[in-house]
């Protein structure tokens, strides 16, 4: 574990943990953006520049904004009077803890079999573009379809049923 | 075409921008404390009391008739009439104000006091640089503060002052004629009226 990794991992985890456990939803989202930004930095550290910036553009720039809008539109902006956690929080917490234990155990066990860092790959955006337009052209089209469907679907759901006025 | 009006507007502002470097019409600012607009003759701000001659107490035209106090719409003039009479500039015994206060923090510069004054004793000043921290001390003007000479009046309102002077001179002439007549009628007692000081002389200036 290198120092930069720790420097980046710490705020990431802190942000994300805060996002899950803060009381005020807007604070949650702000903490979440910190976590997302930390993740993006981790991607950069892993030489995935494009993915890292995409992460910021999409998650911080768009998803966080979307979540903020959703909060503003459901009147959950202020701190809530009710408890933060649902009634079944013990169950949920246990499940999550168990999952982490299993995963960590598995990772730890298999750790030895993995190599050290390979030489730095030359990933220009151009290669991503080439890959996208050749090998991944079908997923791209499917993605387009998915996005369109998501657009229409989300709008349909979120749009209030307008009574045919006038 | 969309944007045509916007382009026209941009051209207009550009013309003004460039024009501001060449034309006074497009750079209308008068840089106040250094530059000033030419004094407009009719301008008015707050009233002052005109006195003739050198001595403001002696030459005060006001005879304390209290008309302006009554007519002042916001009631900012306060006069106390004297018990005795004093000789005025023309040497006639007159009442005079022992107290003549104008509260300029109330005055609305309406000029009605000037209009109703039958003695041309109160006129409008043009001085406006009166800002102060002291509300009561500096904005309540007493007789002394209010008194300004007729020369000053001529300076700020030349046309008006000339008319007033002419009218006063005429009145005085009439009065003199009358008194002369009376004096003559009173017969040979021969006490010539003492020469009038200042006023007539300054009017010729």
């Amino acid at each position, binding site marked *: 574990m290198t120092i930069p990794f720790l420097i980046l991992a710490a705020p990431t985890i802190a942000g994300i943990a805060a996002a899950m456990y803060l009381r005020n939803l807007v604070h949650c989202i702000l903490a979440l953006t910190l976590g997302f930004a930390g993740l993006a930095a981790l991607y950069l550290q892993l030489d995935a520049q494009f993915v890292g910036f995409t992460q910021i553009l999409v998650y911080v720039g768009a998803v966080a904004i979307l979540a903020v809008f959703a909060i503003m539109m459901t009147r959950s902006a202020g701190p809530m009077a009710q408890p933060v956690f649902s009634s079944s929080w013990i169950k949920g917490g246990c499940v999550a803890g168990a999952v982490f234990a299993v995963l960590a155990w598995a990772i730890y066990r298999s750790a030895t079999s993995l190599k050290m860092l390979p030489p730095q790959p030359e990933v220009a955006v151009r290669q991503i573009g080439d890959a996208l337009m050749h090998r991944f052209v079908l997923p791209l089209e499917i993605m387009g379809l998915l996005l369109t469907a998501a657009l229409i679907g989300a709008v349909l759901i979120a749009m209030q049923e307008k009574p045919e006025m006038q | 075409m969309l944007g045509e009006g916007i382009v026209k507007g941009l051209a207009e502002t550009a013309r003004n921008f460039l024009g501001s470097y060449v034309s006074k019409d497009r750079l*209308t*600012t*008068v*840089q*106040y*404390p250094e530059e*000033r*607009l030419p004094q407009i003759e009719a301008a008015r*701000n*707050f009233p002052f009391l005109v006195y003739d001659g050198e001595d403001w107490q002696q030459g005060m035209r006001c005879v304390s008739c209290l008309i302006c106090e009554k007519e002042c*719409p*916001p*009631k900012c003039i*306060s006069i*106390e009439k004297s018990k005795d009479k004093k000789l005025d500039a023309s040497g006639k015994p007159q009442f005079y104000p*022992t*107290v003549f*206060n104008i*509260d*300029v*923090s*109330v*005055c*609305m*510069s309406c000029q009605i006091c000037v209009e109703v004054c039958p003695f041309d004793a109160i006129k409008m000043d043009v001085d*406006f*640089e*009166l*800002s*102060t*921290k*002291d*509300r*009561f001390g*500096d*904005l*309540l003007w*007493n*007789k*002394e*503060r209010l008194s300004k000479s007729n020369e000053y009046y001529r300076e700020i309102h030349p046309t008006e002052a000339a008319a007033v002077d002419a009218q006063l001179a005429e009145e005085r002439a009439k009065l003199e004629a009358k008194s002369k007549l009376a004096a003559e009628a009173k017969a040979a007692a021969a006490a010539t009226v003492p020469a009038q000081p200042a006023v007539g002389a300054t009017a010729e200036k």
Partner: protein
Amino acid sequence: MDEKLKVELGKQGIFTTTLQELYNWGRRNSLWPLNFGLACCAIEMIATTMARYDLARFGAEVFRPSPRQADLMIVAGTITKKMAPQVVRLYNQMAEPKYVISMGACAISGGPFKQGYNVLKGIDRYIPVDVHIPGCPPRPEALIDAFITLQKQIDEQQLTGVGRPRHLDPDAPSEFIVPQFGPHDLEPPQNPDVWRPPLVNISLAGKNESGND
């Protein structure tokens, strides 16, 4: 800055002196008025910012609509009793240092309308005023004159010591009573901490003899 002040400043040490000069210079040249007009004088206030008189020359064209960002409240016009609480609240909400120019007869004393039942007889009943400028309304030049007077006042303020201005004194208040609407009048009708009517013995003389002579 006059010599006496210089000497006095010298006692405070050169650092404070330069700091004070810088501080005063900065405040003096960046007076942003609150975008706030009440009545007739407001039109002259606007005229002052317009091309002919151009208050912007002094760096004061940044009329901020929010009291948080403004330094100078130009009380331009008649303050009615209905409006007085709002004026005081706006003044309170301004960040220190803040200054007040009381523009025109109405703002100083109620002016021609002082006999009215709904007119406040001067804004200095509730908040401290730095500069009064009489006139009904004062000419734009007069407002600029008031502005320059205020700048001079700021220039003379000291950073430390007894003579320091209100906003530097930790004990001086920064906000004042906001009057409440009562059934007949504002309550309280004035803020005794800021202003008490001077006493005159009018019952005897009938008239005040601040006379002359």
